[in-house]
C-alpha cells in the first residue's frame, strides 16, 4: 500500500485521527503488513513481542484462561496497547478468520505516545473514561443539540394586533389588557409593524408623545418575522444580529404570535419546565394528554444533546409521575384518594422507562375498604393512560386487573405465595412489585407492604434469594462476538443481553441488603457505600448501564420516527464504529458483573 493509502487508512481510525500530519507521515513509513492464516496463535505480549496490530481484514478472537471468548477484533480494531505499555497480558489471541493487519513496532508506538497528548490519553484512560470519550466524539460527529429545535416546538405569545388607524391610546389600552409590552400593527396584506414599550418611552422623553395619533404613524415597519418551521437557532441569530428583542412567528405569511428573546433563552435553559407547568395546569383529560405527549420532543432533544440516559430517565419519570398524580386527582373523588395508593412498578417504578413501552401499575387499597368501589375509576385511568401513549401491559399487570387491585393484607398474602411457591410467573411478579413506587394516594400503604416483604428475608430464605439472583444469568451476553456483527446485518436484543442482567443482578443485591432505593443507579451507589461493590467497578457498571440504555433509546427513537413499534433490537448495520466500541466495552462489563453475581450468591452450588 502506498504511503498515502496507509495514511488515509490510519486517519480513519480513532485515535490515529488525532495525530498530526507529520507524526502520521513518520508512522506510515514504519508500518509493516502481516498475514496470519486462520488458527494462528498470535503472540501479543511477552519479552519477544513488541508489536501493535491494526486489523485491515479478518478476525482475531481473544480468549481468557478458560478459553472463553472475551472479545473479537475485526476491521479497523487495534490491539493491544495495554500489553505493550504494561507488558500485562492475561489473554491469548487466536486468528479466527485469515488476518491481514498492519504492525507497528513498539518503538514507533511509544513515540506517538510521547509526542501526541490525545493519543496517549486515549490509551491511558481507564474504561469509564474511554466510554465517556467515545460518547463525546459521537456527539461531535452528530448535529449539535439545540441547533435542530424548530420554532414550532417553542412557546410564543399571542399578538396584540391592531389596525393602522387605531388611535395610540386605544392600542396601548389593548396591549395593557393583554399584558403585552408591544403593539403589533396590521399594515398591507402580510405586512406588520411594531410599537414597543421602549418606543413609547422614547416619544415621551422627546415630547412627541401624542395619544390621538393613529398607531400606524409611530410603528416600525416591517416587523421582522420567522416561519414556524424555521430553526429556533436561526430566530435567535436574527435577534442578535439585528439587535432586537422580538420576532413575529408566521405560517404562510400569516402572523401567529410574537417570539421574545427571553422566551428562547429560557426555552434553551429549561426545556422541560414548560411541560410540567402544562401538566399541573391541565383541567381536562385532553389537555393533560396533550401536555403529556410533549415528553417525546424533550426526550429527542436531550438524547441529541448527549445527556446521559440516567438523567433523561430521571427527568421523564418526574414528568410521568406528575401525569399519574394529576390523572389520579382528576378521576378519583376526593374521599377515595386517601383510601388507596396508585403504584407504578417495574421499569416505571425504577424511573427507567424513557419511552412508554407498557403500563405496569397496581392499586393498593386500605384494609377494610371495598375494592369494588375503585373499579370504574381504574377503568378510566387505564383508558386515559392508553390514550396518553402507554400501551397495555401484555401480561395485564394493570389496575384494571383484579389481581393487581388488592388490599394491603391481600398483597402481603400474595407476597407469601410468591416466595413460598416460586415459579417463573411468581419470580416476575415479585420483581415487578419489588420495584413499586406510590405515585398518588397514601404512600404509607406501600411502605407497610414493602416492610413486610423485607421482613420475610430476615435471616432466612437464602435459597430463594439465590434463585432470584440466578435470573441475572437467564440470557446470554454476547461478549466479544459483537465485533463479528460488523459486516453482516446481525442483531442483538440489548435488553436481554445487557440491561436486564444489570437490573436483575442489582435488584437481587438490593433485596439481600435491604436497599430501598429503586433506580438501578441509586441501588448501585448504595451498594458501593456499603462496600458490597468496589467503587471503581461500580463506576464502570453505572457507565455501562447508562451506555446500554442510551443505545437502546437511540433505536427506540428511530423506530418511533419510522412509525414502528419501538423494541430492544439493535442492528449492527445501524451502529457507528464508536457505538460498536461502546457496546462492546459495556457488554464486557455486564459479563464481569454476571461473574460477580455468580460468586456472590454462590450460584454454582444451586441445583439444576
Amino acid at each position, binding site marked *: 500500500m502506498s504511503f498515502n*493509502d496507509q495514511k488515509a487508512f490510519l486517519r480513519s481510525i480513532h485515535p490515529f485521527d488525532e495525530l498530526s500530519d507529520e507524526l502520521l507521515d513518520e508512522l506510515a513509513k514504519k508500518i*509493516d503488513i*502481516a498475514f496470519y492464516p486462520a488458527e494462528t496463535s498470535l503472540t501479543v505480549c511477552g519479552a519477544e513481542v513488541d508489536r501493535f496490530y491494526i486489523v485491515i481484514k479478518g478476525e482475531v478472537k481473544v480468549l481468557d484462561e478458560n478459553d472463553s471468548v472475551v472479545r473479537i477484533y475485526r476491521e479497523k480494531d487495534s490491539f493491544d496497547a495495554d500489553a505493550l505499555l504494561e507488558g500485562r497480558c492475561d489473554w491469548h489471541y487466536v486468528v479466527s478468520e485469515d488476518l491481514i493487519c498492519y504492525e507497528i513496532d513498539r518503538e514507533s508506538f511509544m513515540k506517538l505516545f510521547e509526542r501526541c497528548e490525545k493519543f496517549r490519553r486515549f490509551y491511558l484512560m481507564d474504561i469509564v473514561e474511554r466510554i465517556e470519550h467515545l460518547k463525546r466524539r459521537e456527539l461531535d460527529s452528530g448535529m449539535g443539540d439545540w441547533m435542530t429545535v424548530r420554532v414550532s416546538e417553542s412557546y410564543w405569545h399571542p399578538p396584540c394586533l391592531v389596525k393602522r388607524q387605531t388611535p395610540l391610546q386605544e392600542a396601548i389600552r389593548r396591549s395593557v389588557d393583554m399584558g403585552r409590552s408591544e403593539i403589533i400593527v396590521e399594515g398591507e396584506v402580510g405586512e406588520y409593524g411594531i410599537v414597543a414599550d421602549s418606543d413609547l418611552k422614547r416619544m415621551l422623553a422627546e415630547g412627541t408623545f401624542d395619544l390621538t395619533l393613529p398607531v400606524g404613524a409611530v410603528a416600525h415597519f416591517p416587523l421582522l418575522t420567522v416561519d414556524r418551521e424555521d430553526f429556533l437557532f436561526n430566530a435567535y441569530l436574527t435577534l442578535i444580529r439585528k439587535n432586537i428583542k422580538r420576532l413575529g412567528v408566521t405560517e404562510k405569511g400569516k402572523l401567529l404570535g410574537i417570539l421574545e428573546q427571553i422566551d428562547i433563552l429560557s426555552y434553551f435553559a429549561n426545556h422541560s419546565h414548560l411541560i410540567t407547568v402544562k401538566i399541573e395546569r391541565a383541567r381536562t383529560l385532553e389537555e393533560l394528554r396533550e401536555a403529556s405527549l410533549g415528553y417525546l420532543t424533550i426526550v429527542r432533544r436531550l438524547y441529541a444533546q448527549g445527556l446521559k440516559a440516567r438523567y433523561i430517565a430521571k427527568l421523564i419519570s418526574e414528568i410521568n409521575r406528575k401525569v399519574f398524580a394529576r390523572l389520579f386527582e382528576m378521576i378519583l373523588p376526593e374521599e377515595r384518594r386517601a383510601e388507596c395508593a396508585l403504584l407504578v412498578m417495574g421499569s416505571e417504578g425504577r424511573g427507567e422507562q424513557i419511552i412508554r413501552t407498557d403500563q405496569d401499575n397496581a392499586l393498593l387499597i386500605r384494609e377494610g375498604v371495598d375494592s369494588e368501589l375503585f373499579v370504574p375509576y381504574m377503568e378510566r385511568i387505564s383508558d386515559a393512560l392508553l390514550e396518553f401513549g402507554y400501551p397495555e401491559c401484555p401480561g395485564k399487570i394493570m389496575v384494571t386487573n383484579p389481581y393487581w387491585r388488592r388490599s394491603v393484607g391481600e398483597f402481603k398474602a400474595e407476597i407469601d405465595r410468591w416466595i413460598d411457591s416460586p415459579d417463573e410467573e411468581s419470580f416476575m411478579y415479585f420483581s415487578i412489585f419489588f420495584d413499586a413506587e406510590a405515585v398518588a394516594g397514601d404512600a404509607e400503604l406501600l411502605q407497610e407492604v414493602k416492610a413486610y416483604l423485607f421482613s420475610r428475608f430476615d435471616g432466612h430464605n437464602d435459597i430463594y434469594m439465590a434463585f432470584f439472583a440466578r435470573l441475572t444469568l437467564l440470557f446470554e451476553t454476547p461478549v466479544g462476538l459483537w465485533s463479528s456483527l460488523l459486516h453482516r446485518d446481525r442483531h442483538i436484543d440489548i435488553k436481554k443481553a445487557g440491561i436486564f442482567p444489570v437490573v436483575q443482578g442489582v435488584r437481587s443485591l438490593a433485596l439481600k441488603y435491604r436497599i430501598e432505593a429503586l433506580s438501578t443507579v441509586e441501588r448501585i451507589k448504595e451498594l458501593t457505600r456499603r462496600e458490597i461493590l468496589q467503587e471503581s467497578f461500580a463506576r464502570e457498571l453505572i457507565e455501562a448501564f447508562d451506555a446500554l440504555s442510551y443505545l437502546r433509546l437511540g433505536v427506540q427513537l428511530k423506530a418511533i420516527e419510522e412509525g414502528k413499534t419501538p423494541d430492544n433490537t439493535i442492528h449492527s448495520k445501524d451502529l457507528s464504529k464508536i457505538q460498536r466500541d461502546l457496546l462492546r466495552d459495556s457488554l464486557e462489563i455486564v459479563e464481569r458483573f454476571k461473574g460477580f453475581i455468580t460468586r456472590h450468591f454462590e450460584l454454582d452450588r444451586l441445583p439444576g
Partner: protein
Amino acid sequence: MIASLKKAWQKHRLKDPKYAYLFEPYRGDDVVVLDTETTGMDPRKDEILSIGAVKVRQNRILLSDAFEAWLKPEGRISEESIKIHGIRRIDIEDGEPPERVIPRLLDFIGNRPIVGYYIRFDQRMLSAYTRRLLGIDLPNELIELSEMYYRRYRKHSPHEFVDLKFDTIMEALGLPRLGKHDALNDAVMSALIYLKLKTIPEYKGAFS
C-alpha cells in the same frame, strides 16, 4: 544441470565482480515480491516506467523497507500504456535514469528468490537493463504466483478452465484490494497472495 551451466556462463559474463554475490545460493528465508509497470509487452523495445518491490519475511511484508522507483524512459510512451497505467509523460519527468535505479534494486533484492505474477515478464524486462549495465540476465530464482495458484486449485473436471487473472485470484483467495493500482501496491497484493497460497497445500486430487 542445464540451469547450473547457464548460471556459470552468466557469471562468467558478469562485468562487475561486485555483483558476484547474485550467483551465491540463497540461505535465508526471505523472498522479494516484485512488480513493474512498462510502456508495453515487448522487452526488446519497451521500457520500465516504475518498479515496486517488498521483502517478505515469515508472515510479514516489510513495507517499512519497501523499494519503489520511477524510471525516466528514453522512448515514447504509447497511448495504450497511458490507458493501462494512467501514467503520463509528465508524471515521469522526475524519473531517474536506469543506471541509478537498477544497482539500487539489485542491492535490495540480493540473491533472494523473486516472487511475482507472470514474473518471467518482469524478469525479462529487468534483464534488458542488467544486460546492458552488467552483462548478465537477472539470475535470481523465480517463483510464479499463477503457477502456485494453479497447483492449489481444486479442479472439478480434467478440462476445467482455471481463470488465472490477477483479480480473479485475489477474489478467490478472499484478499482485499488495498490502495490503487501501482507497482508497489501490486507488489504488496502479490505478497499477500504469496503468503496466503503458502498456507494452502498443493492439490493432489484426481484432476491435478
